């Protein structure tokens, strides 16, 4: 699965964008979005997904169940 950002909760603080090891996060239509094709759930890079760890609003960067879990 890839992570996704719940747009209605996002504060546009930009913190996740700079941390993403896959450059999967970008600004679009007043919020930030994760490109599911690039997201690796940070597997192989870090112990925890960076966007989840830095996000100031709980339950905003969440797993997108529309995609299968990422396999390294």
């Amino acid at each position, binding site marked *: 699965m890839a992570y996704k950002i719940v747009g209605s*909760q996002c*504060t*546009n*603080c*930009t*913190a996740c*964008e*700079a*941390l993403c090891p896959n*450059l999967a996060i970008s600004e679009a239509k007043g919020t930030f979005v994760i490109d599911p094709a690039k997201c690796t759930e940070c597997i192989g890079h*870090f*112990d*925890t997904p*960076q966007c*989840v*760890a*830095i996000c*100031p*609003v709980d339950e905003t960067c969440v797993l997108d169940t529309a995609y299968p879990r990422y396999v390294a």
Partner: protein
Amino acid sequence: MTEAMFEDSHSNGSDDSAVDIADVMQKMAEHKGCGTEGGSGKASCGSSGGPEDMPTEIWEKVKNHPCYSEEAHHHYARMHVAVAPACNIQCNYCNRKYDCANESRPGVVSERLTPEQASKKVLAVASTIPQMTVLGIAGPGDPLANPGKTFETFRLISEVAPDIKLCLSTNGLALPDWVDEIAKYKVDHVTITINMIDPEVGQHIYPWIFWENKRLQGYEAAKILTERQLLGLEMLTERGILAKINSVMIPGINDRHLIEVNKAVKSRGAFLHNIMPLISAPEHGTVFGLNGQRGPTAQELKALQDDCEGDMNMMRHCRQCRADAVGLLGEDRSAEFTTDKIMAMEVNYDSAGRKAYQEAVEAERQAKVAAKKDELDGLELAGDMKLLVAVATKGHGIINEHFGHAKEFQIYELSQTGAKFVGHRRVDLYCQGGYGEEDALDTVIKAINDCHAVFVAKIGGCPKSDLQAAGIEPVDQYAHEFIEKSALVWFKDYLAKIEAGEIVHSDRGDAAIRQGALLSQAS
């Protein structure tokens, strides 16, 4: 994106700018005896000290900085540019989701700017407000969690407006990694928010920090944060960069502990300590707001500031600005300088005009100090008596505001040693959780209830009698005169009346520190 966020990629490079820490500490120590303005007795140290009170190089740094000098804040303006939205820690008094254009508190901002937009905005404001001398980056997140944007902004501004002082305000977590970069851009004022030096206390204030690519919580998080903050402070002191420490007073959590914080930062060379009241209303959506954590009363805050004062400079004129505030402390003209308006503005940066204006301000300041000195004789009658008075002012150290127009009152403590600025009280109309406005006059009386008198340029008949009924004397005969001089003249008259048996002196009660959002931007 070139931001190497939160990585220890910046090793400590050259020591060219380093100065001997012992030398700096010595200068700080010499400075701490301040408050003897030509024999006037103790003033609010440092924050209101004048050129006689400190080494020339420190005076040159603080004299035009409204946050670092209480004296300066009557005359000079600052602006914040909101180029730093990301943050690397979470505080229980902050909720980044809440953003209201009518609200004035830290961490809140309406527009996010690019470094280029920020630079244009600084020029636009500096051209419109000649007393704007300081540019700060304070968020709405943490400047050092956005180092690329923060330092690019400083670089652009130092190219186009080299006379403007640069400062930043940080939580300190990333500070040790960036001290040399801060020195490189000649940022000579740095504020660190330090709410604790004991992780046992800190775990109740900080739910988490982002550290080495992980979210850490509880004691462990607070321990790293305090270590980084104190290391960063020491590194600033070594480089001769003035450090101000902000602390949020949270009753029951860190209130008495802040005395220990005060000692710790003092011993590491901090220039100024600013203890601020917690702002927590439920509608802000912060953890503290939702938990019903209260802020301190006016007298609780003042008592803690007095306890910490000793030989440390205490800042008492902080207005807890928004991250995009513009203007004199206590006013916010940011609505005049939105991105759309700035981009449409023809900007002509007039260095000579700004210099001339600032020279006139200097002359005005000196006149004010001279006027105060003349009134220092004859205060012996006061004995141990200390009392507070409120002043309606629009700035310049003059009683020049109508009672009914005042959005805040400045508070002076009068005693045998003179008139000392000890704080301010906001009295704007506030929205209280959406329940509408309460009676404006009642709001004012609650906010200055611990004062014996209120000095105004003008006041109507009705509020006058209501104030008198509440035991606060309305004083309007010193309209458009210097605050401190007038307050001392009134005080001597008050003492004479007691001596003559015309009045009986009694103590006043406590006052409320207003919480919640501003309703009226500008009247």
